[in-house]
């Protein structure tokens, strides 16, 4: 006889474990358990049959998979947690005894844990990591804006800032930004990295109060993991583009050393864009500066000057600095000497500031970055299908056009516009950008530069204006990116009433409400600006079709044709249409009756949701019509 089978000894009852059981098994406190779950990415699971799991009870409980908990059981992190607990105990004791010596010693030996193994374990390939990067980016960008407080440590915030800037640099360098959107919550960005779509949100950079009903401990645990993840992802991404990992500006790093202004002027050189080197170098007419500029130009232009320094002599300190940064990367260092040989030491802060300015491209490891446009072409030819190849080619061309959207534009940002986001966007699409040098470091040219094509302004008027450039509001940049072409600037002039800013993430399907602005934009995209009005009217017809069916035959098209000669014939025609529509509707109603019971509920659910959707669309449409009407009336009155 076999062993007697009892209830709840196999199956679902043993595959799940409740949270309290798990905590008891791991011998952890609840807080530690939570931290462990966050770091290891263990989440509760909802069993299919709760009753079977909870021995017949349906009480609400959270369950973890038994395998997950067993997996946590062998985690070395648990030991680190215990060590930290002991550390806290010792420290507390020392502090309360006012034993400064001991306190200092204990603090110096604070136990630390590394999460790299966990990152590798959770994301065996970096594509997996990219796939999960949305929340990570949003959190890091949020923490990068935090002030340093008791709960949010300075190191964490600085690390977040550094990593996010690095990531943005990668996006710029790879040209993978696709969509941007200013919402009331913050600015959304969408990029396509290695075939993965990443979306993140950056809050508006303004002072906001910290809410009290938020547990910062949990958030910082998340950020702890996210910074590790983002760091490794950044490293990998930089290497995929052959860039130095802790990013370095492409320009020679040793500036003149005679003050910050000189240093900035130096950077206005655009040394890193060889095709643009013909452009007037610097608008400042100071001989001294020019002299230095030209000298530096002579020196830095040829690549031969990139010679590695030996760790001797005056270059030692610099070498040391770079070495500290490039410790694990290829040995080629692109440290350059000033013409005098008296190179300057940039403080870390300045370096960081300059990197954060994002106005310059990053230094590549082995010289030029490879042109990647060829790679996809080769790949596509393998797949054979000519249509597919053709399509892919068109897509690639579109993409290339998008990536160089602002190539011929030179922007100047006024001080009131959000500098970082605009710099990021403009640089991502191949534009040049600068701002007033007194505002922040990293400005590459001045307002007086005559080659500037667009100045981005967010104020009603400006006293001094140049004729050679357009003064546009920041929304123009965002809308142009979303439209994938440079929109006419007239709508976005300084002080103008802006057209609505639409979300690029919405893809309207049949029956959804499409705002008229979007219709216009779509038609513009198709290059048929003439048909704009037609299309708009067509869509209107489409959406009113249903209503027409139920209403009397005196529909709007009839009213329009009042002046026309043949009235009766048309009326008849409409009748036929109506009849046909009625007949099809009835047929459908009858066919609906015959849906088997098995599918009836599903069908009605789908139809209900569809109906709700159309109702909502209808509501929006009516609202819009009313608004348009009111506006027209006002205009008439004004006229």
């Amino acid at each position: 006889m076999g062993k007697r089978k009892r209830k709840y000894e196999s199956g679902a009852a043993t595959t799940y474990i409740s949270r309290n059981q798990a905590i008891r098994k791991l011998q952890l406190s609840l807080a530690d358990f939570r931290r462990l779950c966050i770091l290891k990415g263990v989440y509760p699971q909802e069993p299919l049959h709760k009753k079977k799991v909870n021995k017949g009870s349906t009480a609400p409980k959270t369950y973890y998979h038994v395998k997950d908990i067993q997996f946590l059981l062998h985690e070395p992190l648990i030991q680190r947690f215990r060590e930290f607990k002991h550390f806290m105990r010792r420290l507390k004791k020392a502090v309360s005894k006012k034993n400064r010596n001991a306190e200092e010693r204990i603090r110096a030996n604070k136990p630390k844990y590394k999460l790299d193994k966990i990152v590798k374990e959770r994301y065996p390939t970096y594509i997996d990591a990219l796939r999960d990067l949305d929340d990570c980016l949003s959190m890091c960008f949020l923490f990068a804006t935090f002030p340093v407080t008791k709960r949010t440590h300075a190191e964490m915030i600085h690390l977040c800032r550094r990593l996010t800037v690095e990531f943005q640099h990668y996006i710029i360098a790879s040209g993978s930004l696709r969509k941007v959107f200013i919402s009331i919550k913050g600015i959304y960005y969408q990029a396509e990295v290695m075939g993965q779509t990443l979306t993140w949100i950056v809050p508006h950079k303004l002072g906001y109060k910290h809410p009290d009903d938020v547990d910062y401990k949990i958030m910082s645990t998340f950020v702890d993991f996210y910074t590790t993840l983002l760091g490794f992802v950044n490293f990998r991404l930089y290497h995929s583009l052959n860039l130095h990992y802790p990013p370095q500006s492409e320009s020679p790093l040793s500036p003149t050393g005679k003050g910050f202004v000189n240093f900035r002027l130096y950077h206005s050189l655009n040394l890193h864009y060889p095709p643009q080197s013909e452009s007037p170098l610097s608008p400042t007419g100071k001989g001294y500066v020019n002299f230095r500029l030209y000298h530096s130009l002579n020196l830095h232009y040829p690549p031969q000057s990139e010679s590695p320094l030996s760790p001797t002599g005056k270059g030692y300190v610099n070498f040391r600095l770079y070495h500290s940064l490039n410790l694990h990367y290829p040995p080629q260092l692109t440290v350059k000497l000033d013409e005098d040989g008296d190179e300057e030491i940039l403080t870390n802060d300045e370096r960081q500031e300059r990197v954060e300015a994002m106005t310059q491209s990053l230094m590549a490891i082995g010289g030029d970055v490879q042109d990647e446009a060829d790679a996809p072409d080769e790949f596509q030819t393998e797949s054979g299908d000519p249509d597919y190849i053709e399509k892919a080619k068109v897509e690639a061309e579109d993409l290339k056009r998008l990536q160089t959207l602002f190539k011929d534009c030179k922007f100047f940002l006024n001080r009131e516009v959000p500098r970082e986001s605009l710099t990021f966007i403009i640089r991502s699409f191949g534009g040049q950008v600068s701002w007033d040098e007194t505002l922040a470091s990293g400005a590459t040219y001045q307002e007086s530069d005559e080659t500037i094509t667009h100045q981005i302004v967010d104020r009603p008027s400006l006293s001094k204006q140049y004729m050679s450039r357009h003064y546009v509001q920041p929304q123009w940049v965002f809308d142009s990116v979303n439209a994938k072409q440079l929109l006419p600037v007239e709508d976005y002039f300084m002080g103008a009433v802006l057209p609505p800013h639409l979300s690029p993430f919405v893809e309207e399907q049949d029956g959804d409400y499409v705002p008229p602005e979007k219709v216009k934009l779509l038609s513009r995209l198709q290059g048929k600006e003439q048909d704009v009005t037609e299309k708009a009217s067509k869509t209107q017809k489409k959406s009113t079709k249903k209503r027409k069916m139920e209403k009397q035959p005196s529909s709007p098209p009839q009213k329009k044709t009042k002046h026309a000669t043949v009235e009766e014939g048309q009326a008849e025609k409409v009748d036929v249409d109506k009849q046909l529509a009625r007949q099809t509707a009835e047929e459908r109603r009858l066919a609906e009756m015959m849906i088997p019971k098995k599918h009836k509920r599903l069908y009605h659910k789908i139809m209900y949701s569809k109906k709700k959707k159309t109702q909502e669309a209808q509501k929006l449409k009516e609202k819009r019509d009313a608004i348009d009407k009111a506006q027209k009336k006002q205009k008439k009155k004004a006229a």
Partner: protein
Amino acid sequence: MNKPADASRSGSASEDESESASEESVYSGLEDEPDTSSDEKEENNQGDDGDQLPDEYVEDSSDEEDIRNTVGNVPMEWYRDYGHLGYDVTGSKVMKPKHGDELDEFLDKMENPNYWRTVTDKMTGQKMVLDDGDLEMIKRIQKGAHPSTSENMYEPWVDFFSSETMIHPVTNRPADKRSFVPSKWERLKVGQMVHAIKMGWMKRREEKKSKEEEEDPFYMLWKDDEEPDITKRYRQHIPAPKLPLPGHAESYNPPPEYLLTKEEEEKWKEQEPEERRQNFIPQKFSALRKVPAYDRFVNERFERCLDLYLCPRQRKMRMNVNPEDLIPKLPKPKDLQPFPTTEAVVYKGHTDMVRCVCPDPSGQWLATGSDDNTVSNTTVLIVNPGLVDKLLVSNTDTLVMSFEDSQDAPAEKKVPVDWIASDLNLEDYKTGLRLKVEHPKEISQVTWHAKGDYFATVMPKGESMSVLIHQLSRRRSQNPFSKSKGLVQRVLFHPVRPFLFVATQRFVRVYNLLKQQLTKKLQTNCKWVSSMDVHPGGDNVIIGSYDCRLSWFDLDLSTKPYQTLRHHKKALRQVAFHPRYPLFASASDDCSIIVCHGMVYSDLLQNPLIVPVKVLRGHTAKNSVGVLDCHFHPTQPWIFSAGADGTARLYT
């Protein structure tokens, strides 16, 4: 507690001075109050010099009775009801001293200049006068100062172990050996450390720190040539769903239609945060510089964090179904014509609801029954309306009247039904009445056999006699069932074979009339059968029920419904097959008649095809009763209906 008494009493003579001095200082606090003045003096004396002690008993007269209570530190209210206050050293009671009355108290108050500083000792009950020292002390305590005036709290600090090296040692103690011999253990420890530093095992704190700072924690974690170890865990991972992307409404400058109106905004505010479709109120700003920080940003990120690690996950299969695919592919009604499509005639005339409607076999005449005339429901009247063919009329008459009572049939079973033939001369005969069949109870239904000689009646209250079969030619009635099987709703004859369908509340029984046995019992799966009809072929039955269902039975197939149609919203009142065309209809309380195409194939393997082809409307409901009866035209694809609104209608 005895000691102080001893000290003050017996120590006067025998004890030496130093001892008594020390005792004095210790126990002075316990001295009786009346003695304090003397104590003070003594203390003052003591302060001067310790050696020269004054005679402490100078003012102490041993004659005086020294009252000393030995009860200790107990609440004195314990002795409230007694005459004594405690016990002295000898164990005798210390009696409460006599207090004068109020008058004495008053006199004392008036006369005694020290009255204000007189207090009562709780322990002894004696009155005592506070001296100036005591008063001073009280004042100082009230002020929060030190009670004693002699105590200086801020005495100058004497730096005894000063930083200045003195020529002479403070103590005379010789130095320890360990103070001049180097420590062995220290040497060993230092040796260890030196070794560790040399070997590079140990680092100085600064070195450590700088090394940590230098080290970049990031390296190439995912190498190109590495095979990822994809575990089972990894494969079973349920990724968290991504956050939905923002729509136009979230824009800082949305199209105006996305902004909420005042009512919508109020509604939004009243809703619970979980109910809201959007977690924000759309706002419009004229310029980017006017956009404020979003105050719920951190909360939203935090909620996302909570979702990521606290929210139970489950793999759900989401079906992406095109609703068109769910609709079964059926032939179009257009291809299934003919069937009634439009309302052609409305027959008005009845004032109350029309109960039943029936066309005559030629289709030229229509009979309706209504509630407006009260008719005794217990009689079946056989009427020859004489409307059609003369020949047919006369034949019918001869058939009906050719009955000869043969008296030979013995009354085996008494059936309480009376057959009354109408007299030729009577007025009734001229109007067409030929026969009356009187029943004992109310009749709900009469149905004819196809041959025309038999008809069956249903008396719902007749119990065992609820179904009766009558033979017209022999004017005989019989009760086929000895026992009632429930409330009979309907009976029907099979059109071809000798079967009788009896519909009770939940079942339909099929009886073979020749063999007199039950052949089939159909399970209708509904609560209350209202109507029934048999396909002209005889193999299919439809049943309508009060719970909105129409069930189609294929008798060859099963005793369970082949198909159940729930097309009506309300109770079904009547179902009917067309005698020629493949049509059937159902009339319901929701005022509609649904005509369906019901094709029965002669091929036994092919199932009947049922397609609804038309919903006919026109009747209106009265007292929540809609269409009560429907009947197809015998030859045309038309249908007659009778409604509660007092009309009968013809749809063609």
